[in-house]
């Protein structure tokens, strides 16, 4: 009974937070509600017994990704009244684009069918959760059966990272840089004093 109660608390909060993300007037509030939604999703994972995924969700999404979101959004100077002025003007084109997306989604979903080996993979015997912790079970799968996919996703992240750095990095002239090694290696400007204890210099 308690489990069901906890489930409804997490689920309802997650949905409510999700709605607040898109309806909150203040963008910072939106990000904070997004974080709340992530957190409740992690709670739902916990209830399913997927403790590793739950912790990963909190560490990666709440602890890192959302911090950057918040960082950026906090520094934006958004004037909501100005944004609302163009609302009617942009409404038709927004509706058209939204409509196209909806039709596409429906078309894709209607023609959706699973690859033949998926159903057998779902039915494949999973190790009983009381014998193997799910950290271990995930590791066994990712590093053996799905190792190429794992490496490929790592490569995608690497490319994204290099791309971000090349796009934003620029050489500036006339910037003073500190060479810590040189600074520590110099001898003339640092003097060691032996201070008698309880005395001061």
């Amino acid at each position, binding site marked *: *009974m*308690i489990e069901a109660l906890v489930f409804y608390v997490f689920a309802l909060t997650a949905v409510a937070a999700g709605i607040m993300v898109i309806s909150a007037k*203040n963008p*910072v*509030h939106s990000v*904070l509600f997004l*974080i709340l939604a992530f957190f409740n999703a992690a709670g739902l994972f916990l209830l399913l017994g997927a*403790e*590793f995924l739950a*912790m*990963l969700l*909190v*560490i990666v999404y*709440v*602890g*890192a990704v959302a*911090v*950057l979101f*918040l*960082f950026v959004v*906090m520094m934006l100077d958004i004037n909501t009244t100005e944004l609302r002025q163009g609302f009617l003007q942009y409404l038709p084109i927004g509706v058209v684009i939204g409509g196209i997306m909806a039709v596409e989604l429906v078309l894709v979903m209607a023609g959706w069918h699973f690859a033949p080996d998926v159903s057998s993979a779902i039915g494949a015997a999973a190790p009983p959760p009381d014998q*193997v*912790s*799910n*950290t*271990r079970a995930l590791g066994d799968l990712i590093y053996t059966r799905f190792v190429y996919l794992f490496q490929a996703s790592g490569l995608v992240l690497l490319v994204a990272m290099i791309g971000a750095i090349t796009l934003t990095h620029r050489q500036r002239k006339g910037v003073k840089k*500190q060479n*810590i090694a040189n600074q520590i290696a110099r001898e003339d400007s640092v003097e060691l004093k032996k201070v008698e204890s*309880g005395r*001061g210099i």
Partner: protein
Amino acid sequence: MVDMVLALWNEFWPIVWPLVWIVIKILVIIVPLLIAVAYLTYAERKVISAMQRRKGPNVVGPLGLLQPFADGVKLFLKETIIPSGANRAVFLLAPMLTFFLALAAWAVVPFGEGLVLADINVGVLYLFAISGMGVYGILMAGWSSNSKYAFLGSLRSAAQMVSYEVSMGFVIISVLVVVGSLNLSDIVMAQKNMWFVIPLFPMAVIFFISTLAETNRHPFDLPEAEAELVTGYNVEYSAMTFALFFLGEYANMILMCGMTTILFLGGWLPPLDIAPFNLIPGPVWFALKISMLLFVFIWLRAAFPRYRYDQLMRLGWKVFLPISLGAVVVVSGVLVAFDMLPKAGV
């Protein structure tokens, strides 16, 4: 009437009792923790004053021992001021969140063999997740205060905490590779023969320095830089809202020292498993080791000047990250080469 009450009692007691029991256990952890926090502030003032050849607090009670309570009462009685330009809800939520997270992390900390509130499989990840969320309290406080000093302080703090978390994560991974489990009790028990501080000494040093940055302590206390930012993110807070930040910060210091103790100093284990040492109960050893690390925290505050911001970032990203990343490779390489990997099924 009495029968009905008794029947209700019998029906609900089995449901209510576990809740009551868990609340009792939580109080047994939290009340000593808060007292420890109070006396940590006292210890800090006394130790620093001794290092600076002053007397420190010595007026309230014998040796000034009641000073923390006097401070607490003072903070209670003051008025909580909310700035008119502040975002009220977020402004009030921030200190609560900081305090809540600082306490929630203690749920998985093992104080002795079997002495733990929640002995979960992914204890290390839980601690890491909770400590990573601490940044929100600071960001929210800085943004909602609607003050430039608070905002700048919170930005610095957020960047700093996110940076040092990365190298902390790698250090934790190299410990986990040696142990083969994410459970905190298992990590402590794996140090029965040798504390990890000996084979993984460089990792322990990096971890300890990273915890300094993670808790925004000296010499990395840039978010608070009194000279430039007039104490940073909590500048607009007063009375109890300030007290919650303060308590949370110091509880986090104790927590981080506890984490270092568990990962590297053998948790509740005595230094040698022979007669005079192993007679002392585990929790006492745990507390002693934490106190030792806390002393180092305070000592560093008295001894070192503050880092400059670019130096702080350089240390995190260009020094600690490569070293700890390399160490993960070296440690796991050594374990594989000498066939010392923890066996499967543990």
